[in-house]
């Protein structure tokens, strides 16, 4: 059993996929935010298997794990804690930008002014763009989870190809959990329910995890910065799918297709670009 749990494909694909489905099935009648808790449970287990339970030393990667879990708790609790108050739209992007500064602060402190300006422009721009494009599909469960699934799939595969299996596995575990949600939506014939809450908090977990892991793969590993441009276009591409099939299976397939094409193309390109000296070490 222990050997199975040590295998990356179980840690970041099979386990989060199954856990997300089971938790959602168990909670769907209790709360509209079942999908958030399903993602939380899946990521909590996966990240514990991938990283171990230790948070010391508190590296950037471990900060990302804490922040993704924190964003899921926030998105899950806000509807209960603040029923009447609508959070400002800026709440989610501001929280994500603060998260960026916490994760990358140590590295940014060693940058020169031009590099700091480029980092801030790129990081803040990415967060605002993802917040806006995910906001466009926040009310459409099929599109929201299709975009989340394919964006994190592309981010994870690209990060793994860019020499950080750890970052790659974290993103892939979230992608697998989102895939489990999509399958639940297809099989159960009932809307997954985005647990829509104030402002952009409901899409915060997708925005924050994709932005942090994508930027970490650039700054801490060797993902070319321009690889994030097509990946960041995935939520917009998903929102532009012209057809809206009635059948849930077709809906999930059609909405995932643009993101899948982009994610796989970018991942293949990153892998090719970095594989000139690879011999399967």
């Amino acid at each position: 059993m222990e050997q199975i749990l040590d295998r990356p494909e179980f840690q970041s694909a099979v386990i989060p996929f199954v856990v997300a489905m089971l938790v959602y099935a168990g909670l769907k009648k209790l709360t509209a935010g079942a999908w958030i808790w399903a993602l939380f449970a899946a990521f909590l287990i996966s990240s514990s298997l991938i990283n171990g339970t230790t948070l010391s030393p508190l590296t950037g990667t471990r900060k990302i794990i804490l922040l993704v879990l924190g964003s899921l708790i926030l998105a899950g609790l806000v509807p209960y804690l603040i029923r009447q108050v609508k959070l400002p739209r800026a709440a989610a992007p501001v929280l994500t930008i603060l998260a960026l500064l916490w994760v990358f602060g140590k590295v940014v402190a060693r940058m020169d002014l031009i590099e700091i300006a480029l980092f801030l422009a790129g990081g803040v721009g990415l967060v605002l763009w993802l917040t806006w494009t995910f906001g466009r599909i926040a009310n459409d469960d099929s599109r929201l989870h299709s975009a989340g699934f394919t964006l994190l799939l592309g981010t994870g595969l690209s990060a793994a190809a860019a020499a950080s299996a750890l970052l790659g596995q974290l993103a892939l575990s979230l992608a697998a959990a989102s895939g489990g949600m999509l399958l639940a939506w297809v099989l159960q014939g009932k809307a997954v329910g985005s647990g829509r809450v104030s402002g952009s908090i409901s899409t915060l977990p997708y925005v924050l995890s994709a932005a942090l892991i994508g930027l970490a793969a650039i700054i801490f590993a060797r993902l070319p910065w321009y690889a994030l441009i097509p990946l960041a276009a995935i939520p917009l591409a998903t929102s532009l799918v012209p057809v809206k099939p009635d059948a849930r299976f077709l809906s999930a397939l059609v909405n995932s297709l643009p993101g899948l094409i982009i994610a796989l193309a970018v991942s293949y390109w990153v892998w090719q670009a970095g594989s000139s000296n690879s011999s399967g070490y």
Partner: protein
Amino acid sequence: MKKVLLLASLAILPVNSLLAANYTIDPGHTYVSFAVNHLGFSTMRGKFNKQSGSLNYDPAGKKASVTIEIDAASIDTGHEKRDQHLSSPDFLNAVEHPTITFKSTKVGWSGDKLSTVTGNLTILGVSKPVTLKVSSINCGEHPFNKKQVCGFDASGSIKRSDFGVNYGLPGIGEVLDLQIELEAAKD
């Protein structure tokens, strides 16, 4: 007999006294290398290509100290792709923690020769005590540049999980054998 011993002591003491000095590490003749088990099949070896530091050596006063700073990103296992992976957040996280340091805190002597160096090794910002066994130490005048030079070979081992480097356990070995061959020239 006492006179002979006294004369012999007087002859040796100045030599040892002359050695007491600060030395700067010669990066061209300093090698920090490691060996780790690879998936139970074989031993994988690697080294760091950039390091700096200093040595203070006073055999007469039985005092010594050493400080080594290693550029984590200079890791070299003879395979570029693997070196990129070892520099990534999976292992050394070289962007976030660019320097590995060793600072001695205590030394042991065997006669007038340095035999052990105990110090704090810092990886990923985590400092743990490590004891290196010194297998040889020699000082003298360099035959070409005529500078006073000291060199030593030392070895020890660490558990990488002690420093939070957990990725790939247990497949990629937990214990790293360290080897340091160092030369330093008198300031």
